[in-house]
């Protein structure tokens, strides 16, 4: 197993907390009546932060709809992300991408609006790396719902056949919108499908940040050394509904008790306890991280709100490259 140092552990913790406050901040803005598309990350912070932390700056991430850990983990400033979500010019897509967060410099390759569309694109990035004889790798995130899209299967087959430097990270939060995956999915462990595509499939506890980091580190190493792709299934749970407007998730398609059970497995509280237990940090030090993250998000909101919208001319530009 890859060794994880103190600095990395604290970075993971800090970013998980920043992500949690970002998520809370977006929910707060939604409650104020702002129009933002939000697929809450609450409960899924471990994998979404740990995996990008295991990546190199030159590695590419193919994000998916449930965010925003892949962005924060890859180095995006929450104020830039918030600005984009509310259509401001200071956003990472100049206020025109909204929820489709992307950043060329951070190698965040664009969060798609169509489930699984980005996964073959990620395989194309991996093919490009191979053709250019570069040493980078790709991580493609997707959910359990998207894992049933044909695109995922086509993509995994090509990655396996051509031994491409890509890691497939499936966050299995057990529900696709309002449908439990037990109703629609042929296997209980999605990692079982990996062997059909010529790659190892690993199921991990998706709420264990340290496991997420170590597994991703190893898979990325495999990818980079020419041994081909890996499929990681991170079993987890979304504490909120599908979107901020999901009114059905408590008592309609899942029970309140089930949600309460999973709240006890909160990945942030879990990592916090672990860090204290391992003497990586004291409770006071972690409290300080929490406090700073909360302050940062207050500032981020202000920055986003105070930023200008793009001009009409800017709204209509960038359809074509000149």
């Amino acid at each position: 197993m890859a060794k994880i140092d103190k600095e990395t552990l604290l970075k993971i913790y800090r970013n998980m907390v920043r992500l949690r406050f970002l998520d809370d901040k977006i929910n707060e803005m939604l409650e104020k009546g702002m129009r933002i598309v939000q697929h809450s990350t609450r409960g899924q912070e471990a994998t979404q932060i740990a995996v990008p932390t295991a990546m190199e700056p030159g590695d590419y991430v193919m994000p998916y709809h449930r965010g925003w850990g892949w962005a924060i983990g890859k180095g995006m400033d929450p104020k830039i992300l918030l600005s984009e979500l509310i259509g401001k010019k200071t956003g990472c897509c100049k206020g025109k991408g909204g929820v489709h967060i992307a950043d060329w410099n951070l190698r965040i390759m664009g969060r798609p609006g169509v489930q699984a569309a980005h996964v073959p694109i990620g395989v194309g990035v991996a093919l490009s790396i191979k053709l250019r004889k570069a040493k980078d790798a790709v991580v493609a995130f997707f959910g359990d719902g998207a894992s049933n899209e044909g695109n995922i299967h086509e993509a995994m087959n090509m990655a396996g056949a051509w031994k491409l430097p890509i890691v497939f990270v499936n966050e299995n939060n057990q529900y696709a919108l309002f449908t439990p995956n037990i109703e629609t999915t042929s296997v209980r462990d999605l990692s079982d499908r990996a062997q059909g595509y010529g790659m190892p499939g690993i199921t991990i506890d998706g709420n264990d940040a340290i496991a997420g980091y170590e597994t991703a580190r190893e898979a990325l190493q495999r990818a980079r050394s020419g041994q081909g792709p890996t499929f990681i299934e991170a079993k987890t749970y979304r504490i909120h509904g599908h979107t901020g407007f999901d009114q059905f998730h408590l008592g309609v398609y899942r029970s309140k008790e089930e949600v309460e059970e999973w709240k006890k497995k909160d990945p942030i509280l879990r990592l916090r306890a672990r860090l204290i237990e391992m003497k990586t940090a004291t409770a006071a030090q972690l409290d300080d991280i929490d406090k700073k993250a909360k302050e940062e998000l207050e500032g981020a909101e202000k920055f986003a709100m105070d930023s200008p919208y793009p001009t009409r001319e800017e709204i209509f530009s960038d359809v074509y490259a000149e």
Partner: protein
Amino acid sequence: MAKKEMTVSEALREALREEMARDNSVFVIGEDVKINVWAVTRDLHKEFPERIINAPLSESGFSGVGVGAALTGMRPVVEIMFNDFLLYAADSIWNQAAKYRYMCGGGNFKVPAVFRIAGGGSTGGNGCHHGQSLEAPAIHFPGLKVVFPGTPYDAKGLLKTSIREDNPIVFFEHKLLYGVKGEVPDDDYTIPLGKADIKREGKDVTIVSYGYTLQKVLKAAEDLAKDGIQAEVVDLRTLRPMDTETILKSVQKTSKLVTAEEGTKIGGVGAEIAAMVAEEGLQYLDAPVKRVAAAEWIICSSAYGDQMGIPQVADVVQTVKSMF
């Protein structure tokens, strides 16, 4: 300037060979691109073993692979064997390639990918799953450029330009056009996108066409000349962006407009041309616009039946004559 006579298929292969030799980032991916049913990419793998990649039967998947490679420094030429399979790839091209630049990063991403697609009917017996014309839906998507050459010269020059473009290109080819011969210069030349070409000058009627139908229109123009009607034939070459200026100039000269295409009429390319002329050049017309297009049918899957609904030379001649 030295010239050689060659087929459209050979001209396309020349374009690919020259661009692959010129630029290491150009590669080809598609089903059976080493032997290749259309012979366009045949044997190029002997020269470029790493850059001619046989893909699995996964049109959506390998078109997406093209998008990803294009985003990160490569210039993929993706071959989709039949037009009809484009609908599997539609998301990767229409939803992803077309929108990336605008939607993601506000102009920091580019998708220099070419999607080559063989279309068109009348190869006999293949019918509606191997013979449709889908260029009309393709032109509906901002972010894409749509090219459809009608001669070997244009095929080579337009493909070379398309490969060098920083935008995603849907590059239609017609199966019956692959064997059509014409002169192609030996030197390195490109043809700008968005520029139509007047293939035959005339003063009495403007016929706007492209692709394989262009060849039929040129024959029809010869027949019409025998009856004293001088047709001006405008070859669009690029369907999006469309060279409206050349069309309007020609209509101003002839006062009559006919469009000719192999796809169906409702929502077709001719509909777009007619609407554009109605908006910008109605005053030039002295007769209603006529559209020659396929019947509103499903392409019959028999060699006997398929030609009945696809516009032929006689349909063009008859339509033009009805205007005089």
